[in-house]
């Protein structure tokens, strides 16, 4: 006997032989479903439904919807002669629908199994999970931004172009660079844009055949080497040093006429500002190569230092990190790339230009006075994100953005100071930028891993930090609190991690290795998912067949 979540029930406890009898179609169908939908963590006092009060279990859409149900009222068109040339669909699609109230419940229940910034501290290093102001959501939905088409006449979208122009001006001013390519759709796409500009510049100098190596420090995010390789560059690693910094002599040693660029993250992924960045930039330029900066960590230095002053040639800015456009469970993002004078002429189409009769949109390479390397995407990029980011910048102002960076750095250092006696700092106890990196040597001989600590943090009501990144330290735990946390929030977080550290060191391994105990799911089996991938729902086998 299975209940609607496919979990065994105890009918006698309910005083009926078959509680699903007479419950209609849905319950009956689910009776036969051998797939187990999940219930919240087990424990005492099992319920018939598998629900635990507010913790509602939600089957898959395909287990509750029907293909003849719709939550949208539309009238069938009058008879007409189709122009489909015999290519009309004859086979059913297999898309179940739900009425509107059922839809609302399905997704509200799903949302309740998610953790967001609005739920609590989200110290995911390198991801800058800061507060997402709802003002930004409101203005992004103004009809003049949300309800305009990318290809309607330019004369009817002057305000949209003005907004793009203004966002570009803010980004160029904050970075002291020459130009900006707004269209890349996320950080990695921005990397691709910047590296394409570099490749175009190298080809313009006639060195395309010979300069094909890109230096990438081992601490770099995976997107950096992946980006370089995608457009045919060979990646040469720059090894990590004991102090977490990239040393100019390690770079110089690898420089030669074959080197096209370095991709350096600054502040770096160990949470440290690269003190030799200016020397590295000079060495790169002297060798005829370019300096690509991964700007994922820009939040530490907005209003404090300008990448252009550091010798950067191209840098992407994750609007979905530094400028608080919401992550939305994995995007959409936006990755504008600021460019130095040397690379500006190669910026891709489209771009906005102020003309004598208002703003113009340069969409074709042939319309540009410069030498655009091509096009990154259809249309003009992530307008919805541009509006939110500009709203953030206008709200903060120059003073507020500087304060935000200082607070982000202050908060990270406060956590460092609160934990440095218990957790291990791989590069010594020195100031960090907006995130603090610990390794797992403090867990030695405890039988607890970085992963276990992360899962135990879930039980304490926190989203875990970034784990196992960067790869240059063992069992990395990268904590980025952002400027959005109050002191009392940080105090409780520090106290919690201290309690966990004591527990690990005192042998309370069960608190870790079995965690999470209180989340909507216990620890999930990722190996099993990869070994025999189930990537979509398929109808359960008919009962007779299943019984064989």
């Amino acid at each position, binding site marked *: 006997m299975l209940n609607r979540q496919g979990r065994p029930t105890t009918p006698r406890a309910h005083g009926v032989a078959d509680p699903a009898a007479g419950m209609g179609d849905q319950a009956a169908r689910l009776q036969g479903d051998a797939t187990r939908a999940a219930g919240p963590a087990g424990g005492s006092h099992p319920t018939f439904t598998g629900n635990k009060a507010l913790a509602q279990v939600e089957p898959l859409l395909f287990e509750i919807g029907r293909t*003849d149900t719709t939550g949208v009222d539309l009238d069938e068109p009058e008879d007409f002669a189709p122009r489909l040339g015999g290519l009309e669909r004859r086979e059913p699609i297999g898309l179940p629908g739900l009425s509107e109230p059922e839809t609302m419940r399905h997704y509200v229940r799903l949302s309740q199994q998610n953790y967001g910034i609005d739920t609590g501290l989200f110290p995911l290093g390198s991801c800058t999970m800061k507060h997402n102001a709802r003002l930004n959501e409101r203005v992004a939905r103004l*009809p003049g931004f949300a309800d305009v088409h990318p290809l309607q006449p330019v004369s009817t979208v002057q305000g949209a172009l003005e907004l793009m122009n203004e966002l570009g001006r803010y980004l160029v001013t904050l970075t002291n660079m020459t130009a900006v390519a707004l269209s890349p759709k996320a950080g990695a796409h921005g990397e691709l844009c910047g590296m394409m500009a570099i490749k175009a510049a190298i080809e313009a100098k006639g060195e395309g055949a010979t300069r094909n190596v890109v230096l990438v420090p081992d601490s770099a995010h995976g997107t950096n080497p992946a980006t370089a390789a995608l457009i045919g560059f060979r990646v040469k690693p720059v090894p990590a040093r004991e102090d977490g910094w990239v040393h100019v002599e390690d770079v110089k040693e690898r420089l030669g006429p074959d080197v096209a660029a370095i991709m350096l993250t600054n502040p770096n992924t160990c949470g440290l500002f690269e003190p030799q960045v200016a020397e590295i930039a000079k060495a790169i330029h002297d060798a005829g190569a370019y300096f690509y900066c991964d700007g994922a960590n820009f939040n530490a230095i907005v209003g404090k230092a300008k990448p252009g*002053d550091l010798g950067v040639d191209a840098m992407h800015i994750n609007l979905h990190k530094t400028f608080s456009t919401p992550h939305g469970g994995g995007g959409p993002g936006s990755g504008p790339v600021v460019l130095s004078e040397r690379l500006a002429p190669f910026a891709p189409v489209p771009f906005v230009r102020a003309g004598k009769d208002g703003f113009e949109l340069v969409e074709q390479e042939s319309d540009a006075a410069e030498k655009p390397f091509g096009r990154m995407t259809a249309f003009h990029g992530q307008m919805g994100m541009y509006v939110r980011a500009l709203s953030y910048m206008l709200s903060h*102002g120059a003073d507020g953005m500087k304060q*935000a960076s200082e607070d982000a750095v202050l908060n990270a250092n406060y956590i460092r100071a609160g934990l440095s006696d218990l957790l291990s700092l791989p590069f010594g106890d020195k100031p960090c930028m907006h995130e603090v990196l610990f390794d797992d040597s403090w867990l030695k001989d405890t039988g607890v891993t970085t992963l276990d600590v992360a899962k135990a943090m879930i039980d304490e009501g926190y989203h875990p930090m970034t784990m196992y990144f960067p790869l240059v330290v063992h069992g990395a735990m990268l904590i980025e609190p952002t400027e959005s946390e109050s002191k009392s929030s940080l105090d409780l977080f520090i106290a919690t991690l201290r309690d966990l550290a004591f527990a690990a060191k005192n042998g309370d391994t069960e608190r870790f290795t079995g965690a999470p105990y209180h989340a909507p799911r216990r620890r999930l089996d990722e190996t099993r998912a990869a070994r025999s991938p189930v990537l979509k729902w398929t109808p359960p086998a008919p009962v007779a067949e299943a019984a064989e």
Partner: protein
Amino acid sequence: MRYLPLSDTDRGEMLARIGVDHVDELFADVPKNLLLKEPVDLPRRKGELEVERILSRMSARNIPASSVPFFVGAGAYKHHVPATVDHLIQRSEFLTSYTPYQPEIAQGTLQYLFEFQTQVAALTGMDVANASMYDGSTGTGEAVLMAHRVTKRRKAVLSGGLHPHYADVVKTLSDMASDETVILAPDVAGTEDILSQIDDTTSCVVVQTPDVFGNLRDLKPIADKAHQHGALLIAVFTEAVSLGLLTSPGSQGADIVVGEGQSIGNALNFGGPYVGLFATQSKYVRQMPGRLCGETVDADGNRGFVLTLSTREQHIRRDKATSNICTNSGLCSLAFTIHMTLLGEAGLTRLARINHANAVKLADQLAGVKGVEVLNRTFFNEFTVKLAKPAAEAVERLAEKGVLAGVPVSRLLPGAGLDNLLLVASTEVNTDDDRAAFVAALKEVL
């Protein structure tokens, strides 16, 4: 500043706890001469009211699609999105979460991704779909790279009916990667001879249907020819609603199906954010770009979902990854899947019929205007008309008369000698009055 919780007292106490006197001591690694002393040269902070005023003023300088008779398409379509969709995607737990790296507290995201993948696979007629790409155009670029990995060849043949922006994206990427791209001449009639372009060096053929001129393309013969030569067929669509009415690319033999999902659940947004749909056959899954969500169980044996097959991805494989994509279009895929759930098969197919019916009505009415010729034999909700004068000029004059009439082909393909062609789209949002206004204005303009 309203977003910053720390008070000056807090800051002082925290600096003391850290053991420094001034916050700039924490920036000690920034070269002294490069640490800014003053705020950058931008205005100072503003209250919510003021920011809203500034941005509302900019917004008011644009003409929203809903405010006029609107027929603009060419890869982005004006559809009605139910209020429920926008409410749900703004729930904190969806909006303010990250990529689901910690699956035990991200089942909401993961389950909808699993449902999304299932819906996209069904819609395209393919075995598996990923958890989204940035948009249709970048997805097409990735599809070509994937075909090169599968076939170990490096030449892509792009149909002349492929959206020119998509072709440009593919070409930019391919040129940079030193791969070969053959782009066929603009194919207004949908009758190009693509079969003769396919040979034993071809990695893939990229064909859009409905194509950018609105023609419906029979993919079956192209798939057959491609397969004879060991090449893949990449089927592209820019209007996802069309799949409700047209036979699926999968059933016609496509190996990779990629397209733009904006039409379902997502606003026009002046071009983005949108959502790329990407599907293929099971045998190619390990060559796929992007994130994949898969089913598994937790320690209690309960069903749950995780991101899986990540050994394809950049964070594990680095320079050997199938793609560099990391952040994708999470929230847009949520909007897509919610809208699709509201529609269901019954609603989607009806919506598609309404779109087609409206376009047929419009085509018939425009065909009756002197100086207008409808060029398509087949179409779904968009078609090409030939005007008696340059389309860009006509569109500008029609805009002055309060009708947003479509996309001049010259905007997408300048210099192709197609200046009098206009792409016209019609969806469920168009009324009889809209059509009448269009026809009346067009008569005046021509």
